[in-house]
């Protein structure tokens, strides 16, 4: 499945873009993170720390990702 992924913060900087289309083998949050890590090795700097949101809510590794979902990957948050 092809998933459009949004990137923010340091992830956007490492990827060099705010958005990328990624081919995903396993249709779960963990599957998307895995595919993105393969495609953008620079994200290894944030290994174990990457967060993923599906439809603007935090997702756990096993949560399903479906065609058309809004998916975003970003580092730990530092607002405030």
């Amino acid at each position: 499945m092809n998933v459009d992924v949004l990137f923010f913060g340091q992830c956007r900087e490492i990827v060099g873009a705010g958005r990328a289309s990624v081919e995903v083998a396993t249709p779960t949050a963990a599957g998307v993170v895995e595919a993105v890590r393969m495609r953008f090795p620079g994200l290894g700097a944030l290994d174990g720390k990457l967060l993923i949101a599906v439809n603007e809510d935090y997702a756990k590794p096993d949560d399903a990702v479906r065609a058309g979902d809004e998916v975003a990957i970003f580092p730990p948050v530092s607002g405030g």
Partner: protein
Amino acid sequence: MPEINEERFFIELTHEVIDSEAVVARLLRGEAGAVVTFDGVVRNNTKGRRTLYLEYEGYETMAVKEMRRIAERTVAEFPDLDRLAIVHRLGRLEITETSVLIVVTSPHRKTAFHACHYAIDRVKESVPIWKREFFEDGEVWVEGQTPPGF
């Protein structure tokens, strides 16, 4: 994108200067005897290294939703509070400017203090906003937090 949810919450993500007094005036009504406000302001140093300014960016649509979810959890946790505002600024901020503002009004002060403290702790751990700190000799992404369970 200001929002009022049944007049009990005021949630806003803004690129403009935050006007604390206007937010308090908006929330305050005769039922409340206590107003507790938290203002997060840009400091002039981090561990002694002189800060020039900060830049905040957000995943804006999700940030607003997350702020609303935090407002709902805060009211569930402290049902006797009257009203609650969560406002966050994005873009470039200078030293002593407000980046985040939490206001809680309540009939009694203990609830107002605890709810305000609770809300800012939640904002810092889960609202998708990131800041970069600019020094005289470089810049860094400020180390972040992860929401519990993720």
